[in-house]
């Protein structure tokens, strides 16, 4: 074969190239390194942050609830959602108020992994409530508009690592992921803590290494989102659909679990899509509207989104009052 030739910086020579066998040592070291990283990722996973601690504690939380309910004979109520419910509800205040109002006794717990939405809740429910003994009687689901519609982006890594049970992966790939890349990513995250928890690893390291990382990335995200919004043609505004919500309701209904959907308070009153309300009515699920609680003001929010200490107390008492009026079984 003739030697390829360019009259400009052409091809490197093979004089110093390591042979295939020699390079296998390098490959072996890299593979061992990846295995070590995976082992470390699995080791630190349960204590990576408060949210991971919560997720890893879910089986215990659920079994404790079941045991308490078995002993007391009271209905089991799970406050379900994300950081809105986590920050919004104080179980101590809730029970005080319930007692004060002579409401029905109940055993409660919170399942509130942050940043989750309807699709996460479907798979989380399937994974962590696998048997009839583990099922709650009532789910109280707190949300704002984007948590319940189908247009909410899927956080594939987190969903696949923490919420999808191994037997549910085929359903996830078939129903919710439309791209081979996403399916591959999901499979990888299902088996690897290194891949599944990657966003948290990245966050921790960049927080440590890059000055003002969180503030900077938030500012940049705002710029990117605003630019995308400006450039999007009017037709690109998608109509909200609620197939995921329908699946979630049907799943709970098939297992005899009653749901109360709670649109959460926000500093400004927001609109619940009538189609979502209709869906809850069609399936005879409850709807407790917390968007305009008496006396709730902007000052009750800690960051313009989550409830602060005063807001938490108002919401907890309001919710206790609402649940004291309804039949839980």
């Amino acid at each position, binding site marked *: *074969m*003739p030697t*390829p*030739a*360019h*009259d*400009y*910086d*052409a*091809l*490197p020579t*093979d004089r*110093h*190239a*390591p*042979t*295939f066998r*020699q*390079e296998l*040592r*390098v*490959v072996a*070291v*890299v593979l061992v*390194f*990846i295995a070590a*990283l995976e082992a470390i990722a699995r080791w630190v996973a349960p204590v990576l942050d408060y949210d991971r601690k919560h997720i890893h504690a879910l089986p215990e939380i659920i079994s404790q609830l079941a045991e308490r309910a078995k002993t007391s004979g009271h209905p089991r109520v799970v406050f379900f959602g994300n950081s809105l419910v986590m920050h919004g509800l104080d179980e101590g205040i809730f029970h005080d108020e319930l007692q004060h109002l002579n409401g029905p006794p109940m055993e409660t717990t919170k399942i509130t992994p942050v940043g989750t939405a309807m699709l996460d809740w479907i798979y989380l429910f399937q994974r962590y409530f696998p048997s009839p003994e583990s099922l709650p009687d009532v789910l109280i689901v707190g949300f704002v508009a984007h948590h319940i519609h189908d247009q909410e982006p899927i956080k594939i890594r987190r969903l696949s690592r923490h919420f999808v049970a191994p037997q549910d992966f085929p359903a996830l*790939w078939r*129903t*919710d*992921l*439309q*791209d*081979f*890349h996403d*399916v*591959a990513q999901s499979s990888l995250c299902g088996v690897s803590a*290194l891949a599944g928890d*990657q966003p948290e*690893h*990245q966050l921790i*390291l*960049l927080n440590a*290494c*890059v*000055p*003002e*990382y969180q*503030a*900077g*990335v938030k*500012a*940049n995200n705002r*710029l*990117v989102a*605003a*630019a*995308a919004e*400006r450039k999007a043609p009017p037709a690109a505004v998608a109509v909200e659909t609620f*197939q995921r919500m329908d699946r979630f309701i049907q799943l709970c209904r098939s297992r005899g679990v009653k749901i109360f959907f709670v649109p959460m308070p926000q500093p400004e009153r927001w609109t619940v899509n009538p189609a979502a309300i209709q869906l809850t009515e069609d399936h005879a699920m409850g709807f407790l509207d917390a968007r305009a609680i008496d006396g709730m003001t902007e000052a009750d929010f800690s960051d313009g989104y989550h409830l602060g200490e005063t807001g938490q107390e108002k919401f907890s008492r309001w919710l206790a009052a609402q649940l004291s009026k309804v039949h839980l079984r």
Partner: protein
Amino acid sequence: MPAQLQTRVLFNSYAFWIFFALVWALYRCLPHRGQNVVLLIASYFFYGCWDWRFLPLILTTTAVSYFSAIQIADSGNKRTQHIWMVLAAVVSLGLLAFFKYWGFFTDSAVALLTTLGFHADLNTLKIVLPVGISFYTFQTMSYTIDVYRGQVTPSRSFTDYALYVAYFPQLVAGPIERSSSLLPQITHPRLRTGGDFAEGLYLILMGLFLKVVMGDNMGFIANGIFGAEKGSLTGTEALVGIYCFAFQIYGDFAGYSSIARGVSKWLGIDLMTNFRMPYLSRNPSEFWQRWHISLSSWLRDYLYIPLGGNRSGPAKTYRNLMLTMLLGGLWHGAGWTFVAWGALHGLILCAYRAAGDRFRLPGRWGRIVATFGFFHLICLAWLFFRAETFAQAWEMLGLIFQNQEMTALARYGLGMLTFFCGPLLVFEIWLDQTHSLRRLETVRWGWRAATYCYLVFMLIVFPPPVFGQFIYFQF
């Protein structure tokens, strides 16, 4: 919800590596002719994954240049040869002009006529740009020109020639290969050498790092800053945005070229080096020998030198430099900002040519100052390349000199630049000391393993927030 699995066959996708593993396994089992057939089918499949509708386009360009070259070689008549060469160039450039520049020229004509007070209503078609058209057009053109010049013997095998045009590692974003280099490697059986695996591995890992870790992460910041509304940035933020874009485009394009070379190396075919630590250049002449080498050498051999090069006095040399760089700018994109980018580089080259080496800074510190200063000149040109309008470019440029407030976004951007690009620059300086891109292969294997562990760690832990397309696909 529809469960339709789409595939993105990009170098940074899982689909590509499964595709490549299958092609490679089949390729290794076959004799030379069979290998070429497999590579050709794989290349058309790869291209078809983007858009099957554009396959006839690449086939047309291939067929026209293939038959024209044979006619040129077979004809003893210079005039007939000239006609065939012009025919091939017209078809190739015509398709490129229609698909890439039609909208740009008609929009510009409408704008000009409107400015002059005429009512113009030209119907501008919204044409989808076929991916990689600029690359394979230049590749086929260089082939027919080389045959016309008598520098290359035309291929008599359509399969081999079609593979030369459509060879998948470099089809959609280069390097723009010359027939004198790539075609013989296709027509002759490939010889495996001991170092193929090691070199391919190095190129692929380095390419993935450049693209996924550096390019895409920098791109996320650059997109935010260049997408900001008028009046919402400080000068420091604007400067950080330009730096980030400089490293985004370098990581994106050099990363693609590196992966292309690595993948091709594993198939036993050498592709040319397309980037050699370009941001360590101290002057424009050096920069164009380090940046997109396959394009700059193409422009030199098929445009600058035929225009007369530097053989006809200073005035014509400057004219030739400006024309070459203007067309180089236009090659990158159908927009006036790209033309401005080319013009800026043309002016920088002319100024450097006029000044010669008179202002050469002596010593190590002189080299450092020259490199730092010239990097900022490149960044100035990148500003016009990336800006969506001239107004945006001027506004950002003005801000840099007016408002140096250090915001959280600016500090974050500078921190990210240091974190992602700093180690790479140190590595490149280390490579540049020996003028070798393969220095890592000469060190003890433990150092190489440590470097690869770092690259793999960065690839696993620091992928970008959003899956990144390659910028150069649009050119």
